[in-house]
């Protein structure tokens, strides 16, 4: 019943993305993110954005926090753009070394075609990065993530840290709620309408201390339970949740490698100033 409140998935449906193996998802995620971050070229960013937006749509779910994240990112970035423009209205022109005037407020505040392209590129880049992260989170279970990370030749201790953290988040959340409820019964006011922000912060720190104590107790137990079942005895480990790579997986992995290659090529070309700093038509 707590499931719905969390963005973390513990069981998956059978859309294209969800059915991929953990390793494939991890590779696709990293290659997409790297390519998106490396480039500043609408010819790359726009298709990448469209693809990842479709990915995101295929695993989208009605979750409050998801909407909040998206709206929050959008608002913050638009604010950022406005401030950015106020400080330097001709960023795009400086990057592309061309000047095409579209509109003029006064001599300083002008809108150039290049700057418009610059901001469009930037917003697609930022929202695209967000889409990539979100489809990744929404399409993978913690155990797939762990086996995926391990599949990418990263030591399994790191993979375990990630998956175990995610495994116990609902438990810690439940502890937090229980402590919060007991504190409310004692008289702490956490209602934003009735208590000031400062008072609520103080109240929340009161919850934090017992939460830490309860969690430490739990960690000790988990560590014992894992030791008792032979965790950490070998350098290698297999994963129950691992899947054999299907043909689709193979294709997606090739695609991921292709994306990585593109990113590397782009970065190298960029170093030798072969590609434009900002692409304008």
């Amino acid at each position, binding site marked *: 019943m707590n499931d719905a409140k969390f963005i973390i998935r513990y069981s998956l449906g059978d859309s294209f993305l969800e059915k991929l193996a953990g390793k494939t998802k991890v590779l696709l995620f990293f290659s997409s993110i790297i390519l998106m971050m490396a480039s500043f070229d609408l010819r790359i960013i726009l298709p990448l954005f469209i693809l990842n937006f479709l990915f995101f749509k295929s695993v989208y779910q009605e979750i409050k926090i998801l909407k909040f994240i998206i709206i929050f990112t959008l608002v913050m970035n638009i604010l950022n753009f406005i401030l950015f423009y106020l400080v330097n209205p001709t960023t795009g022109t400086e990057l592309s070394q061309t000047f095409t005037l579209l509109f003029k407020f006064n001599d300083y505040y002008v809108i150039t075609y290049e700057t418009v392209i610059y901001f469009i590129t930037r917003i697609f880049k930022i929202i695209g990065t967000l889409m990539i992260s979100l489809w990744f989170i929404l399409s993978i279970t913690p155990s797939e993530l762990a086996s995926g990370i391990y599949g990418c030749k990263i030591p399994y201790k790191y993979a375990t840290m990630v998956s175990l953290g995610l495994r116990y988040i609902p438990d810690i959340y439940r502890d937090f709620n229980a402590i919060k409820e007991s504190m409310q019964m004692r008289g702490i006011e956490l209602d934003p309408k009735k208590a000031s922000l400062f008072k609520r912060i103080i109240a929340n720190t009161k919850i934090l201390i*017992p939460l830490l104590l309860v969690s430490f107790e739990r960690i000790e137990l988990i560590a014992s339970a*894992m030791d*008792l079942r032979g965790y950490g005895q070998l350098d290698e480990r297999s994963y129950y949740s*691992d899947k054999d790579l299907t043909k689709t997986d193979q294709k997606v992995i090739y695609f991921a490698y292709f994306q990585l290659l593109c990113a590397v090529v782009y970065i190298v070309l960029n170093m030798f100033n072969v590609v434009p700093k900002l692409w304008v038509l």
Partner: protein
Amino acid sequence: MKKPIISFKNFSFKYHKQQKETLKNINLDIFQGEKLLILGASGSGKSTLGYCINGLIPNQYHGSISGECLINGKSLIKSSIFELSKIVGTVLQDSDAQFVGLSVAEDIAFALENKNMPRLEMKMLVKQTAEKVKIAEKLNILPHSLSGGQKQRASVAGILHENIDILLLDEPLAALDPVMGKEMIELIDELNQVDNKTVVIIEHRLEDVLHRHIDRIVLMDKGEIVAVKTPDDLLSSDLLTKYGIREPLYLSAIKKMLGGLKQKNDLTNLEKIDLTPFKDYKVTNLPLNSTKNHSEVIISLKDVKFSYDNNEFIDIKNLNIRKGERIALLGENGSGKSTIAKILTGIIKIDKGEIFRINNPETIQEIAKVIGYVMQNPNQMLVSDNIFDEVALALRLRNYSIEDINERVNNVLKITGLYSMRNWPISVLSYGQKKRLSVAVCLALNPQCLILDEPTAGQDYRHYREMMEFIALLNKKYDITTIFITHDMHLALEYSDRALVVKNGKIVADKDSESILSDEKILNLSSLKKTSIFDLSEKLNLNNSNFIKEFIEKERRINE
């Protein structure tokens, strides 16, 4: 003579942080294929002894060891926890924390993953072991949607495929309701009988464990072994009472009411006890308890409905709770007991219906002045540095005057017997003391009703008695309505007058405790079971109600 698989010789252990030895001069041989119970009150060292068998000592908990301990012929000091994990499989008490996988299958597979077993082989083994413990149809279920019993089953499955010789179970019954507990004991027995595993159970719930055969019982007290006996020898002695272990109820009744045991064998099963010597026993017709006149309704629910995620869950047509009542809230895990408690305390807002509480409080903060809620885990309730501040917190938050606070807090601390410790830091308190403090915290607001979630879970007999007598006193002296959520049927009988049975969010029975707890139809419906005292009374053709009352009265007098 068989050869011992575990052997302690003059073994002692002292935790680094403690001044005294936790285990003193242990001499014990455990043999291949044996089924052994380690019995003892809290603090007797029984869990520590378990840690020495699975290697948590000295690998995880450090301390000084003297003497010798051989597991499968190898010295404990020289074995790593990994080597031992191939011989000893451990199931811990907390079924939640030890469940490291994200599904039943992954949890069962955990040890195999660590051995880097190829996936195909692993999947086959997981399926096999899951079938063995009868959890195969739940392989893909998340831990949060499993019951305590199912989690324990998964944990057992998780250690089985290792080809281990020794199965060590540390309080496996602690979180289980009666029927699940019974099934767990049967499962353990099967592993011992069919697969010839050596089984070591650490428990203080003797009667539940004795549901199936046990070879020997090791009784511990203050870090020492005080007796190693067969169940029959131990049950016919008076050692159990002496060391704070609850005897099986039927034996206790025979010893205390019917004039003592007439046989020395087959004591572990009521069916096998010859009851002919007791046939003439007559229950004294006790005067009916001057049942207090519970007239004033302090809480009432009408057509209350509540749902998680649009699945209708709680549905209560009509419920009245009166001043001074003692109510037991019974039902299997996940039936909605805790949700009902949260509805009463206002933590959960209902979807439909009406709730009346005396003085018409509205917010959670106001409701707490009428209904106090004592959670199961006291650590979730205690946030201050010392006892006085903890109790005073609720009053300070409500801006009481300093004189008022001092008076009220001191009063509550005196009632709860914590007054002499009022300046102690919370961290030095024992579990039982913390539990008591969490009641004191609620009492500070002078509520008319206390809800206690599993007030005795995980506590031994002495602490159980202390806690419950204390709650009973609060009820008697201050007329506080008490509502217990519990799995312990005898507790419900002894300390409540009325029982509510919850099933799938509905109250399916609401009668006096005795008639509910002797009604097999209702009990079966909700994973509960009759206590052996009922069975005994029925076998003797006595009036159940009077017999039980007399028994409870006798036990109470002896305990005082």
